[in-house]
């Protein structure tokens, strides 16, 4: 487990959708955005593999908070989203 509560993180600005059929649980609007780890929710099998019936490793899943500024043009909501560890980078 890489991130402790309070850790500043950035969601990878990656678009696997452009590279072929995928199943991604990191919403488009968070790609490249910065947030704060709230807590580790547990380790769960990687849905990106489960979706294609491939062997899936277990990954740490975090609840990550995002401030309204910096997500939408014109502001928006305070957000709390489950994000798998490989999608998060330390800042």
């Amino acid at each position, binding site marked *: 487990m890489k991130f402790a509560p309070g850790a500043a993180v950035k969601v990878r600005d990656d678009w696997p959708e452009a590279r072929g*059929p995928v199943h991604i*649980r*990191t*919403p488009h*609007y968070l790609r490249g955005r910065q947030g704060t780890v709230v807590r580790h*929710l*547990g380790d*769960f099998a990687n*849905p990106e593999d489960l979706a*294609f*019936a491939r062997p899936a490793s277990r990954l740490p*899943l975090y609840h990550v908070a995002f401030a309204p500024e910096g997500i*939408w043009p014109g502001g*928006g*909501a*305070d*957000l*709390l*989203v*489950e*994000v*798998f560890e490989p999608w998060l980078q330390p800042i």
Partner: protein
Amino acid sequence: MAAADLTLLRTDSDRLLAAVRGLLAAKGIVTPEEIKERIRFVDEAHPGQGARMVARAWVDPAFRATMLADGTKAAELLGIPMRGMPPLGVLENAPGLHHLVVCTLCSCYPRAVLGYPPFWFKSAAYRARAVRDPAGVLAEWRTVLPADTTIRVVDSTADYRWMVLPMRPPGTEGWSEDRLAGVVTEGDMIGVTLPHVTA
């Protein structure tokens, strides 16, 4: 992985269901009796279950603490079947903080405690708008929050299922747990509405 033939998949849904039902039965994978039994089981989950949890949390601080730490355990304490269900997380509303649950990617919903997701929860409009304009979404239900309330939108993207623990409404002092549960609706536990006591 090769995708299945689109022409076949475009078959009328009723015919597709009949064909799949027949093939699964013929292969002994899913029998019609199992389907009937499963429907009976799923129909037993309803918002009254979540409402019982909320009411208990309002009167019992120890239960409330358990519920916030481990929603699955709290549900099981009230006899709600959770085996095979995703872990349940509970988000507590407080003065100045209101939670709203959405699943922008599909329709993840705390079915064990609320039953089938309602139509609106699955709609494109709700899924798109909740993360961006939650106050506008609440206005669709004529829900008005006190000024200076932060709305925290919870996008349910992965393995947890989330329900909201709303604040106990004023005017319910001394009420029994059953009576309290009676004022808690499905919408209150997703965050689009607030428990309402009619005078």
